[in-house]
């Protein structure tokens, strides 16, 4: 009912909407485009040679590798988890279903640093499971498992959030039809369910990747910042910045930005297909 009024109210000049649109563009330019452009401008401030030298630094390369590794572990797990949970919630009625929906949203509302601290207090040396882990010589905190766990926590809702509404909207008629035609469980999933949700799934996976690659707060708590071992790219950027290696920090940041931009482009492409 208000859509008409929003585009152009009778008796109102066209200047107002134009002004608002201009304002939106201006704000976007100031708050989003300018900082992004600044990253690249600073990264190349001392020329290509210095840029490449900064990127080729073994510690930066290791950080890029570690960040990629974390994403490669986290994203598939989240996809599997996301589908399973969305499937359970959309297709079945069981006690605690609403609670499960709420629980899955928790990582969205909790600051990642709190997630990091919780894991630390659980798995750390003084934590609940700490003594047991230490006795069995299992390293969780300040090692890859801790980083992966926290990243998983932070990114847990992304796939579910995209897939679940679609599954609920589509209903289960097609799946039921497949079952009556004699399809087995796996066949139903791979021939009917998966094709139906594939764009939402990809979209969720892309968002999940972007978040996993960029996660700072939670990882910062459990990483231990051991250079060349547990420093992810965002942490490496902070350390370089603290080392007064501003150009290097921006060079490393530019790689992260490129990843984010690629993800954005993929996301936009997916959106247009939905």
């Amino acid at each position, binding site marked *: 009912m208000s859509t008409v009024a929003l585009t152009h109210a009778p008796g109102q000049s066209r200047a107002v909407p134009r002004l608002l649109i201009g304002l939106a563009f201006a704000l976007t330019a100031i708050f989003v485009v300018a900082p992004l452009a600044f990253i690249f401008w600073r990264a190349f401030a001392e020329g290509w040679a210095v840029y490449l030298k900064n990127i080729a630094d*073994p*510690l930066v390369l290791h950080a890029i590798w570690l960040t990629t590794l974390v994403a490669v572990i986290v994203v598939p797990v989240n996809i599997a988890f996301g589908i399973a949970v969305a499937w359970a919630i959309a297709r079945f009625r069981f006690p605690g279903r609403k609670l499960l929906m709420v629980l899955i949203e928790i990582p969205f509302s909790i600051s990642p640093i709190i997630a990091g601290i919780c894991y630390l*207090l659980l798995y*750390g*040396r003084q934590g609940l499971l*700490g003594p047991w882990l230490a006795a069995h010589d299992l390293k969780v*905190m300040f090692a890859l498992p801790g980083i992966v766990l926290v990243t998983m926590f932070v990114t847990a809702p992304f796939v579910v959030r995209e897939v679940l509404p679609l599954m609920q909207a589509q209903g289960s008629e097609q799946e039921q039809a497949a079952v009556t035609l004699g399809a087995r469980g796996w066949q139903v999933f791979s021939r009917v369910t998966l094709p139906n949700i594939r764009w939402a799934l990809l979209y969720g996976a892309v968002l999940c990747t972007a978040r996993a690659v960029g996660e700072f707060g939670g990882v910062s708590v459990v990483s231990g*910042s051991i250079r060349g071992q547990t420093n992810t790219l965002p942490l490496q950027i902070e350390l370089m910045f*603290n080392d007064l290696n501003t150009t290097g920090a921006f060079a490393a940041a530019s790689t992260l930005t490129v990843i984010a931009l690629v993800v954005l482009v993929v996301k936009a492409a997916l959106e247009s297909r939905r």
Partner: protein
Amino acid sequence: MTIRKLHVAALALMLGSSPALAQDKILNVSYDIARELFEALNPEFQAHWKEKTGRDVTIDQSHGGSSKQARAILEGLPADIVTFNQETDVDVLAQNGLVAENWREALPNGASPYYSLPAFLVRKGNPKGIKDWSDLARDDVQAVFPNPKTSGNGRYTYLAAYAYALTQEGGTPETAQEFVGKIFANVPVFDTGGRAATQTFAERNIGDVLITFEAETKGIAKQYEVQGFEAVTPATSLFAAFPVAVVAENAEKNGSTEVSTEYLNWLYSPEAQDTLAENHYRTTDEAVTAKYAAEFPEVKLLTVDEVFGGWQKVQDEHLAEGGILDKVFVNQ
């Protein structure tokens, strides 16, 4: 030249971490701004260890705010040694049994192989003529330093200013509080950490003087060479220890007690001390100190023990909620 040095160090790190038999390995957990320092020191120690024992040693580095680092070690970060910039952070580890109770006596100079002091960095030509702490309380001088509530660096600045005022003729806790309050009142912005304060001063051109560790002032002056900042060491300042300790529990578990102990002892050797002096830290070795005397102006150093009666008292009387620091902040 620094970039080349970095490269050599990075190469050494890479080579050092390639798998080999009879590997010794230590994790040095350190404060956030010490990366270049240890990149310079570690290859030298690796050569020293090879010469002494015929074995290779890998040295891993972790850098972060030293309180955060202490916390991480309490939660299991497997540090073999700590090289911090706050004594209280080593005390925390000692209280939890990870570091020997008497760690201060385990090594010379209160287990601080090198030290520094709060000093000034002023703009080119020192236009405001800032020479000593008294200049900071002038109405026309804006000082920049990190928030003492969040930064160990800022805490030292606060304590040094307070100690200076207290030890002047007729100095009392009241005059000291008034003096520090005057400095605080002219601080245009309190950043949370030392690096942010540096950015405020050097890149945003705010303030007339940056207060930070002397070792830092010289490093920053070099980093921002074009701007021509000048390091100024006041006539009086506060001794800032850079304490080191073996994290005994971890070292025993990792079988690295021998190499960890040797690393810390080696920091007192003329070779290591020379590198420390090159990185603008004040040294304990007499010959090295004499060699670099021209770079380090004479300064009357007060200590936390003699002025404040120890770190515990500083904590209770100054830094605790509602303490003197809070009062000074409110009264500005």
